[in-house]
């Protein structure tokens, strides 16, 4: 007990600890000490990430509206689709997702190493540099100084700042690991090590090979580009998301992970197979066939890690699904975990040539990307924040109702957006490739099912029968629905931002218990809050 540093641990938590049985008190205070030590850097990271989430959402709305109403906001050059869309992508990737992920990394590493956070100044400095890099890069993209290469639009001066900041985070993880009190390395920590070591490598490589005086040219450039574009999901966001899931599901329901062997197998098979997958984006392109084939094989082999993760998460939750009715953390995290399985299996199938050829370069791919980065990763990050933030601010979430608004608007919004873009993208792909008549025309003439049947039965080997402008016009209703779903998601983001500000400021009702769904109902019935 004497070793626990109570500095930073809130008085009410110390008081609560005194009511616990003696055997539990020290462990409880140690955990509280770790949480208190993480407060500054993690809350700054979370606060910054939510700010960038709102910026990215606004940019997404402008870009989405322009897809079906191209004449809006045309006066200002910086609001062109060609600038707003990459600005949206980079802000949500490097502003929101990466910073939320870094916050989760910092907290999880301290928890898993069972050591209070040290070198907090180093993390705050890195966080400032990362924010500066995102701000500088986004302004540069909007000002027309972007690279026009998807996922690496930031110019070299902004990219350098991001690399420097991430390097500092990596160094901090090594220093913390060296001081750990927990001898066992839990599976989440393996995943986090993967993220902090693999990402700087792929980021530095792509910057040198595509964004420097030594940049390669021609076909090699695209090979490097998609190696990075695919791996940024697989070696940065996937490990962070899975690390959070493997920690939070067992902790929330109080049950160890179903099979630890499977979890370790999942990590090492991800490490082995994911790096090969990027070149399936180049199917049909002027690249060596063996390169694409190796990539397709690597993508299909991803069935192994994904299946292990899916079995493990499901079996861990089995018998505890009832907790989804009450727990915000669990609801977001389990939703994200289920979407991880779906997006990964879909990704493996999309890498196969026969599936890839009609769907590539269509909205189908956009749907897949949103399923991965939003429905999986972002939802897991929301769930993680619902678990972590109250432990750092010593304040519960002010409103279970707002959390409910957040969950349903984002879950329904992303599910329908995925459905709309998947269906629209499939029609777009078939019209560009095999179709002999427009789907819209056939549906108007023969009804939904009859028209769709004739659309499919009319496929031919001849490409480009449907005029390109007809394909573009046929996509307008699907894109308009995408904007509607985007607005629904934006409502959820605003609800979450309001909740976070209320928590930080101490506004709203001060709860005496957790903001679980249905807590108000139980309270009204005279139960405990």
């Amino acid at each position, binding site marked *: 007990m004497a070793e626990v540093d109570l500095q930073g641990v809130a008085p009410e938590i110390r008081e609560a600890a005194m*009511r616990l049985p003696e055997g539990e008190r020290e462990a*409880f205070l140690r955990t509280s000490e770790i949480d208190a030590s993480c407060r500054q850097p993690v809350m700054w990271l979370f606060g910054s990430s939510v700010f960038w989430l709102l910026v990215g959402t606004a940019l997404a709305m402008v870009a989405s509206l322009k897809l079906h109403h191209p004449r809006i906001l045309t006066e200002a050059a910086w609001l062109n689709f060609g600038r707003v869309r990459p600005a949206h992508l980079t802000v949500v990737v490097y502003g929101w997702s990466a910073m939320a992920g870094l916050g989760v990394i910092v907290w999880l590493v301290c928890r898993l190493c069972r050591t209070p956070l040290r070198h907090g100044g180093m993390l705050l400095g890195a966080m400032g540099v990362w924010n500066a890099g995102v701000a500088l890069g986004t302004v540069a993209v909007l000002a027309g100084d972007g690279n026009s290469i998807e996922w690496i639009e930031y110019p070299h001066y902004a990219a350098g700042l991001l690399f420097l900041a991430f390097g500092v985070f990596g160094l901090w993880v090594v220093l913390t690991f060296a001081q750990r009190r927990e001898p066992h390395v839990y599976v989440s920590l393996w995943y986090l*090590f993967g993220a902090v070591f693999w990402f700087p490598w792929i980021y530095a490589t792509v910057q040198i090979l595509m964004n420097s005086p030594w940049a390669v040219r021609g076909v090699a450039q695209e090979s490097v580009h998609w190696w990075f574009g695919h791996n940024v999901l697989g070696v940065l966001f996937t490990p962070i998301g899975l690390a959070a899931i493997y920690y939070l599901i067992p902790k*929330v329901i*109080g049950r160890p992970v179903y*099979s630890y062997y499977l979890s370790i197998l999942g990590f090492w098979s991800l*490490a082995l197979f994911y790096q090969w997958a990027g070149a399936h984006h180049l199917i049909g392109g002027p690249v060596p066939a063996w390169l694409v084939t190796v990539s397709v094989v690597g993508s299909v082999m991803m069935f192994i890690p994904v299946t292990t993760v899916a079995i493990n998460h499901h079996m861990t939750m*089995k018998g505890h699904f009832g*907790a989804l009715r009450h727990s915000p953390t669990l609801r977001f995290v389990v939703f994200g975990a289920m979407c991880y399985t779906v997006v990964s299996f879909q990704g493996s199938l999309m890498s196969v040539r026969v599936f890839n050829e009609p769907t590539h370069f269509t909205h189908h791919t956009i749907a897949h990307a949103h399923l991965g980065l939003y429905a999986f990763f972002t939802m897991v990050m929301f769930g993680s924040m619902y678990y972590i933030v109250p432990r750092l601010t010593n304040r519960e979430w002010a409103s279970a109702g707002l959390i409910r608004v957040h969950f349903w608007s984002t879950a329904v919004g992303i599910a329908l957006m995925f459905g709309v873009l998947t269906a629209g993208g499939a029609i777009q792909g078939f019209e560009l490739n095999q179709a002999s008549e427009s789907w819209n025309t056939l549906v108007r003439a023969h009804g939904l099912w009859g028209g769709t049947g004739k659309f499919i039965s009319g496929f031919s080997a001849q490409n480009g029968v449907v005029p390109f402008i007809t394909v573009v016009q046929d996509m307008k209703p699907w894109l308009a629905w995408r904007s509607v779903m985007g607005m629904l998601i934006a409502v959820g983001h605003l609800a979450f931002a309001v909740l976070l500000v209320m928590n930080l400021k101490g506004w709203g009702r001060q709860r005496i218990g957790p903001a679980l769904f249905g807590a108000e109902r139980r309270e009204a019935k005279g139960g405990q809050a």
Partner: protein
Amino acid sequence: MSVLGYVMIFGVMAALSALTVYGLWWGLREGQFFDPRRGAESIFDAGEPIGMGTDGFPPGLAGARAGTDGRGEVARVAAADEHGHASVAMAPECLACGRGQAGVAAGRAAHGGVNRG
């Protein structure tokens, strides 16, 4: 591309690949992968033991503030199964059917809170 560029890219690639192999070797040498039960249970401790849900913030405080003994509703709800059978010490009965499930040990046994390995 210059020689320096090749050295940087392939040097870092080789170093990180070696680090990954070292990580695997270190894990095997330290026995990190040979005791799945210990591995799976390493995130639990006396403050947040197996069988106790931790969705409330923090698990002890939420109940203490509510005037209970430090567990109460928080853990009871979070650790309830699909029938609402609670699996923690302070939960006197199933939320739905009223069957008694008191005790962490009973919760573990009834709800499989044990790692399968």
